[in-house]
């Protein structure tokens, strides 16, 4: 298993796309910070001082890590889905699946190695994203002429950010595993990437309509991914308007409790994982 993980990491590390995904993620963080910095100097007539204050607050150092994690929970999910779905699906596209299977102790271990190696890279991707966010916050603090005050760095703060880091990692998993599953079902990277990302974006629209429909339909989103992900990312304690990552605010929607969200997302994750392993184990690998 360790050998297979080493081989998978070697292939991912050598692949240009892995680096491109990381650069894109860091690029998005830089652009967002610069945009917020630009907006923070403009008085918005409709919402005025309150929103302006929240933006300036967001650019401040205490909010750097939670804000970066919030961004990573949305854009990071897209990158993570692409990473894992292509890692699995391209084995079919390049017809290397038979070669790797012949070199693998078992199909279970091969899938396990792929998941663990992608997990390791996602972990480092998040870590680099957090560092990039913090550096951008330092830069915008300097450019904006705000005070460099590190009094917020307490034991509680570090613990909160540590927990939020793992919460972010956790909420990525259902989408990543969904992409992984569909790359196996479709024997290609494309179904995994398109369905993983498609569901990530489409679900937010569909659930909004479900809530608007009212009645029992309005309760369905509590058992889908999006509301549960938002419930967990909301624990970052960002300023109100930015509490749900790029969703910008809850819009008065009642989100499920964090416990409900954890259980629901865990069930989805395990279901996608079990299905992926089951299908891969049973399947004949032909041309």
């Amino acid at each position, binding site marked *: 298993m360790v050998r297979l993980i080493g*081989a998978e990491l070697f*292939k991912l590390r050598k692949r240009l796309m892995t680096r491109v995904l990381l650069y894109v993620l860091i690029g998005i963080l830089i652009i967002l910070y610069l945009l917020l910095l630009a907006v923070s100097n403009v008085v918005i007539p409709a919402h005025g001082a309150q929103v302006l204050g929240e933006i300036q607050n967001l650019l401040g150092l205490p909010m750097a890590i939670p804000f970066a994690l919030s961004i990573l929970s949305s854009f990071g999910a897209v990158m993570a889905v692409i990473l894992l779905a292509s890692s699995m699906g391209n084995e079919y596209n390049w*017809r*290397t699946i038979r*070669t790797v299977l*012949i070199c693998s102790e*078992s199909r279970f271990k091969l899938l396990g190695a792929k998941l663990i190696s992608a997990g390791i890279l996602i972990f480092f991707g998040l870590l680099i994203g957090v560092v990039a966010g913090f550096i951008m916050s330092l830069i915008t603090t300097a450019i904006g002429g705000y005070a460099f005050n590190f009094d917020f760095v307490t034991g509680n703060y570090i613990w909160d950010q540590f927990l939020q880091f793992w919460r972010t990692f956790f909420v990525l998993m259902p989408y990543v595993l969904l992409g992984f599953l569909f790359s196996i079902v479709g024997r290609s990277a494309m179904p995994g990437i398109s369905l993983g990302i498609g569901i990530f974006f489409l679900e937010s629209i569909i659930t909004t309509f479900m809530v608007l429909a009212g009645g029992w339909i309005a309760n369905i989103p509590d058992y889908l991914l999006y509301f549960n992900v938002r419930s967990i990312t909301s624990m970052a304690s960002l300023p109100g308007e930015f509490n749900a990552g790029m969703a910008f605010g809850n819009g008065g929607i009642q989100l499920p409790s964090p416990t409900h969200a954890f259980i629901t997302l865990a069930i989805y994750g395990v279901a996608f994982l079990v299905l992926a392993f089951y299908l891969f184990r049973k399947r004949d*690998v032909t041309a």
Partner: protein
Amino acid sequence: MAQQTTSKPQSTPIKETDIILRTTGLTKHFGKLEAVKNLNLELHRGEVFGFLGPNGAGKSTTVGMILGLIAPTAGKIEVFGLELSKHRWQILRRVGAIIEEPAFYPYLSGWDNLEALARALGGITRTKITEVLERVNLLDRAQDRYDHYSMGMKQRLGIASTLLRDPELIILDEPTSGLDPAGTKEVRDLIPQLAHESRAVFLCSHLLHEVELVCDRVAIIKQGVMIANAPVQELLTQGQLIQIKVDDAVQASAILKNLPWIKSVKAENGYLIIDAPPNSASQVNKALAEHNIFVSELTSRNASLESVFLQLTGGDSGG
């Protein structure tokens, strides 16, 4: 060709430990399609075994089952005396294979592709990678990206990958496809050498002439059923033709066609070509002499594997 192996004498008993691969009643159904039916094969150490059949005959399915990629519907596969279904990894770590065509990561160099495989397999040194690349004459292009390789280079990298783990069984599917004449000769020379190193080579090829040159024994399958399995020389003898020259070819042809043990008679360049059982030349001569037709020339003509193949498969294209 450098070293062509010879057929094992029929009388030499095969030791159980020399049986590298054995399939018993191997069967595979894809839905209603019976891709492989009750296939019984045996491959011995030091042997180059040709596996032939028309397109869609079930060759790739058989190879897939031997490599644990396709689950058999029925039957048993034993490799190195171990049952594949129970000892998959112990077996596969001693097997090198290219299936249908070499497949590698296009963004990696030849070297990195082998290194990725070496890392997955474990216990393979950089020296070994150098050694196998050198053996297939690819060391000087080892750092080039795989997607920049010619078809011949891809094939050679494929062969290098099969040698990484010092396999005792090598499965090669069309190993000379895309190679230039020099490359084809190199690979053709390499295959018997590999078998001489106490390995067994299982070779699927479209090129029947190539199979005839390098294989000790061949099996031919058609629509999933094995229709021949014999040493190459034996198959060629079975397909031996008799060539005669007579004054009255028309009458001679009519006489011979009436004999029940003669399969066919055809005229070709002033000769009659007779498809008759092996060692029947004297009987042909006698039959004609009884009708006062005297043979002025009589020679045996070896059939090619191609003609035997076409005869057995009913003219289907090889593959």
